[in-house]
């Protein structure tokens, strides 16, 4: 191994998250995974949406983009298809991924392009002052739901599995070694890899902090779960709120979007020579 975490840090500044935020752990886990895989930062695209963790691209030496709320996955897909030799990572929050970006989420899972998608799931809109999120439980009191959130929470793990997810996992920001390993596995997986990360919000979530989750998480890999068993994976996905299994719920070898198309066989599209394309055959094709 020739690279260390320092090779992935920005020289321009340091993260400005709240003290104790799980984003620090996720950021570290990503950079550790990249270092362990020895990925070249110049060949790694790190795409954020809008949210707390989604600002992480400011603080990396990789090619970083801060996109729009809800759209990091389509943007990342465009980057990947433009240059499929790049390592592409998108990091969203639960609002980005499961609220405004839910449509893209389902279709990206279904499409199965080779991208790692990390969702810091803190069940709250942290950046915009603590409103309920799609993963907040029904009844959750927040500035936007003073009488309790009327909608039940979404189950991202179950959704991803049922949408055809080829790598569906959950991490916990309070277990760094496990998370690092999970992110590494996600990068090594061929296809769309989702890691939903339990990440208590230290500022807005006064009820469920680290103390709440610490004893309620358990590691799937240590509990005899078979990640190739879809039914078992779905059962585990519905175990909350009593228990929060972390680790790989489900993995399957499935056609990778860009690998099924011959357009990608002659190297990254971004590197094709476009200086002198012959379109005479197109004119020919539409003569009488």
């Amino acid at each position, binding site marked *: 191994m020739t690279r260390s975490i320092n090779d992935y840090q920005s020289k321009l500044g340091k993260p400005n998250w709240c003290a104790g935020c799980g984003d620090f752990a996720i950021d570290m886990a990503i950079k550790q995974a990249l270092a362990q895989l020895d990925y070249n930062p110049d060949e790694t695209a790190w795409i954020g949406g809008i949210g707390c963790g989604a600002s992480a691209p400011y603080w990396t030496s990789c090619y*970083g983009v*801060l996109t729009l709320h809800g759209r990091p996955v389509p943007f990342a*897909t465009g980057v990947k298809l433009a240059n499929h030799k790049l390592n592409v990572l998108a990091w969203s929050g639960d609002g980005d991924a499961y609220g405004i970006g839910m449509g893209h989420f389902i279709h990206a899972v279904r499409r199965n392009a080779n991208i790692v998608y990390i969702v810091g799931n803190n069940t709250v809109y942290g950046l915009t002052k603590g409103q309920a999120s799609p993963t907040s439980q029904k009844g959750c009191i927040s500035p936007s739901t003073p009488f309790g959130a009327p909608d039940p929470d979404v189950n991202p793990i179950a959704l991803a599995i049922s949408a055809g997810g080829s790598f569906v996992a959950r991490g916990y920001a309070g277990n760094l070694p496990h998370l690092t390993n999970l992110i590494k596995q996600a990068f090594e997986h061929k296809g769309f890899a989702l890691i939903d990360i339990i990440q208590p919000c230290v500022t807005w979530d006064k009820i469920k902090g680290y103390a709440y989750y610490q004893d309620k998480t358990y590691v799937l890999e240590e509990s005899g779960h078979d990640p190739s068993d879809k039914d078992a994976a779905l059962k585990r996905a519905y175990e909350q709120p009593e228990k929060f299994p972390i680790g790989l719920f489900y993995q399957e070898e499935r056609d990778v979007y860009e690998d099924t198309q011959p357009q990608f066989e002659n190297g990254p*599209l*971004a590197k094709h020579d476009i200086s002198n*394309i012959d379109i005479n055959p*197109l004119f020919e094709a*539409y003569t009488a």
Partner: protein
Amino acid sequence: MNLPKKINELNIMIGGKAGEGIDLPGSLISHLCMKAGLYFHTAAEIQNVIKGYNNTFQIRISEKPVNCHDNKYDLVLALDDETTDLYLDNIVPGGGLIYDPETSTVERDDINLYPVPLRKIAKEKVGMELAKNVVGVGALLSLLDHPVNALHELLKKQFAKKGDKIIESNILAVEAGYHYVNEHFDDNFPFFLEDRESPETFMADGSMLACMGAIKAGCKFVSEYPMTPSSGILHFMAKHARDYNISVNHVEDELSAINMAIGAGYAGTRSMTATSGGGFALMTEAISLSGMIEAPVVIFEVQRPGPSTGLPTRTGQGDLRQVLHAGQGDFPKIVLAPGTHEEAFHMGFEAFNLAEIFQCPVIVLMEKYLAMNSVNLPKINTENFEIDRGKLMVESEIDESFKRFEDTPDGIPPRSIPGQKGGAHSASSYEHREDGYFTELIPEVNAIQLRRMRKLDTCLETLPLVMIEGEKEADVTLVCWGSTYVAVVESLTLLQNEGISANLIHIKYLSPFQNGVKEILENAKHPMLVEANSSGQLGGLIREKTGVNIEDKILDFSGRPFTADLIVEKVLKTLN
């Protein structure tokens, strides 16, 4: 009626219910004309339904290139009664009408009537009532004195995939129609279709030509969500995706389409999306993102009339303001609008150079009329087409001093793409410094905003001046944009016949707004605006940019394209 012979100058219309197949006769006749060495323009008018209701297909034929349709028909093939009911008066005196006496009763004594039992012939001779459209084509060829066997080869090509039996049936149908007319009617129809020696042409609609330009420009990425009338672009790019190594993606919605295309553009692949007004509305937030992170992207916006779902299969120019103002905040955006099919090709190419040179979104605004109607053209010489990738750096040029968003005199910063050593930076939708890191400091915020906007000034310097077309001095100056141009240009001659001298200006670059308009309009005797929307959107833009208010406006928002006749009528009305 003994009228002078008219050779190779005629306007044919085929009408029928959706589902009766007016496309096939249209395609056969246009291909026949291409083979005969003639030029044509086709125009389809379609109701937004799957089956039923009257649709029409027009083909205007000439020995010279044709750019515009005309609603005065020389020969009509009516497959249903609505065609005869609605369009009988549009047939010129001395023209002809082929109709099925089973469905229509027709009375008009200054045209040639050809009652042909199309359905009955199709049933008896071919055993397939649906073949009545091809029987009609046979009848039409007989009237035009064009050899029927010219169609055999075309039918073989058209139905190659469907097998010999279908080919034989269609040949039977066309022969039956041909011979029926030969046997039952006098040979006195004054219009003729004859072969001419001329360079080989190809047939394409505006969408196809814009796509061909895009492919020539090296576009390798398309993400799109279908929306009439822009879907032809998606279909064409998808069809040729593997011939040219293009990743063509029919994605979940327009939000995804635009964000993917911007992602691909950011990563160094020339990329595009296409949509119509409603889909474009969904894309606007991301268009601003493209402006902010300075990632090139090309968007083809094919207009149909709104508001809301509007008239999905009709034409219009109601999206100019939407496109000009798309996206939050001020950021540079280039908007082009081709007038003709050939311009659609050139601008389809040019858009990708502009997007990379100025590192901003480029929107090519078309109308259904241009995008979905076809002409035939000689092959376009692309020898002098040059790819210009602007300030995209090669790896060896990137050094320690590299700042992705550097404050440069021309407003254009150097650009690196992922994979390049030493070029990594953060490209942020939040306001940022020259090195990409976020800032809210007043001098930095002001400087970068001014620097980005400066790109428009630099761009404007490269654009051609707007020029007068036609006589330099004229009684009337018609002002137009987009494909309204083709009817306006045709109206100049007709106006001259009415004793009115007229010229025109056609504004092709809407943002930045082309220079030259103010000077021309200030010296024009009587400018008139011609636009396919109800508020005179270009008129408003001209007033904003030049201070000149064009009082007289010829506006049509019926969803139907302008014809030269209509413009002449409105000009005369305005002058009186």
